[in-house]
């Protein structure tokens, strides 16, 4: 990838992290860990990969995105705001009754949200439905779903994986944010979903390994998924939970907790330094 473009994307990702944390801090609740681990994935999808139009969020033949791990919507909302679906100021209203930004994605409230989600395992199934519909209509549009690694403990994910392979939904790309942590701790200690890649291959998926924080790696992975025909693709993207905020990295405790004022100020300082360095 061109180094200027890479720098621009890194800047979006840093701003996404700041906005996500701003929302969570304002709400005094929310899920920072997974929002931060998915920052580059969401940035790449919304700035590079998907055919979408902020001026016409309901464009019929658009690419679609389902946040199957719905709890990291602060990250999604920030990606949508940065892409121009609504003003970034909305982030301050996160998780309030009148807000367009509900605690989990609500397609009826938020411009750009293609599917309500939050109950784990359901988003990937809905994405299968969208991909199937495009196939039935002979449309070229693609469907993306972002899943958690802990989410794979939900049996419905595997029903959906079976379905997508059976119906050869090569217009479907699942991205698994492989950060290794869930609310109760290490995914391998809670109930191991490993090996994720081998399981998906045995379900007849095209499996691509990627670094969730490296735009070159993501670019290669998404290009591979797009080029692959005959079966759905899964990008297993190794990530760091809480990435970008030193004290949140690799700490399961930051799965679903809002920072206190001092912590928030430190996080903002760290991320602002990244933004400034990239803006030079």
């Amino acid at each position, binding site marked *: 990838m061109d180094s200027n473009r890479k720098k621009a994307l890194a800047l979006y990702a840093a701003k996404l992290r700041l906005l996500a944390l701003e929302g969570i801090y304002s709400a005094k609740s929310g899920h920072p860990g997974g929002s931060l681990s998915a920052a580059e994935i969401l940035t790449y999808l919304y700035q590079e990969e998907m055919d979408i139009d902020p001026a016409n969020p309901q464009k*019929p033949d658009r690419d*679609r995105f*389902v946040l199957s791990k719905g709890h990291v919507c602060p990250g999604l909302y920030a990606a949508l705001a940065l892409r121009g679906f609504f003003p970034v100021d909305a982030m301050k209203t996160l998780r309030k009754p009148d807000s367009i930004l509900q605690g989990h994605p*609500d*397609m*009826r409230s938020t411009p750009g949200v*293609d*599917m*309500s989600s*939050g*109950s784990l*395992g*359901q*988003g990937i*199934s*809905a*994405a*299968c*439905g*969208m*991909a*199937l*519909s*495009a196939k*039935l*209509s002979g449309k070229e549009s693609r469907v993306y779903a972002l899943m958690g690694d802990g989410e794979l403990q939900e049996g*419905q994910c595997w*029903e*959906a994986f*079976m*379905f997508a392979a*059976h*119906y050869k939904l090569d217009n479907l790309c699942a991205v698994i944010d492989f950060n290794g942590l869930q609310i109760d701790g290490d995914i391998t200690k809670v109930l191991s979903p490993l090996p994720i890649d081998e399981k998906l291959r045995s379900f007849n998926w095209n499996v691509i390994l990627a670094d969730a924080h490296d735009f070159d790696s993501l670019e290669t992975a998404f290009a591979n998924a797009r080029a692959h025909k005959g079966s759905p693709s899964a990008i297993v993207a190794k990530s760091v939970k809480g990435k970008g905020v030193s004290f949140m990295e690799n700490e399961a405790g930051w799965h679903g907790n809002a920072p206190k004022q001092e912590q928030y100020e430190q996080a903002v300082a760290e991320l602002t330094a990244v933004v400034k360095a990239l803006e030079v």
Partner: protein
Amino acid sequence: MADKATREAYGDALAELGEQYDMVVLDADLSKSTKTDTFKKKFPERFINCGIAEGNMMSIAAGIAATGKLVFASSFAMFAAGRAFEQVRNSIGYTRLPVKIGATHAGLSVGEDGATHQCNEDIATMRVIPNMTVVVPADYISTKALVKAAAKFDGPVYLRMGRLAVPNLYKEDASFEIGKAVELFPGSDATIIAAGLMLHEAVQARELLAADGISVRIIDMHTIKPIDKEIIVKAARETGAIVTAEEHSVIGGLGSAVSEVVCEHMPCPVIKVGVEDRFGKSGEARSVLKLFGLSAENIAEKVKAAIDLKK
């Protein structure tokens, strides 16, 4: 017209709707029983078998509907409204997507398969979901009409159908509107409000009671939600006693829905005929129904009891 099951009407209606709508029909390995195979034979490319995975099917249905297509998702009531409850709530109810759930083999009349397959809870679980409409038609003609009405209806609909062949209560040209109940027979001493299979028993009960000089009004409450409040209040005011009859638990179903209206707007005795708080049993369908008191005789008895209560 020969006796036919309401599920037959479902399959026939889908096959007709397929001509008109950009629609997809989903099933979970029960297409011969739910009768979606009638659609499958005519439009094989738009019939999608989801395998034995009802929760997945409901969320897939939501995804298809989100792209602008009409979707019917079918299974037995037990699995559509029971196993897949949370998917229906979150993927379909919350999103208000136009997914129509075709649930067949509801209630005790599944018969020999027994308690695990006799769903007596689905009206309760479906009507409690915001945005969900619940339709329980009684015969072939009304089912076919209401499946077509559901296709046009803006929002999710749960259609509850039965396994057994039943006689027709309506003429071919009868028209039906979701949310508008039908006064099938007039009467002044009491009202039986029934839905689905039990409407047939209610009609027989009316004949039994007529022999004793009791005049009974019969209401076909084919839509349980939104319920037709006006017709209930009118019945409570004019007849002063109500008996409900449903092939469903007495907790949370038609009887509860009618009671909610009566309590708030026009209090009068309401006696519920349905499955008491217990699981079903295996057996020939008609004999199981009788065993559980889902019979014209029991309804007639309860009508007399309700009339006594108003004195």
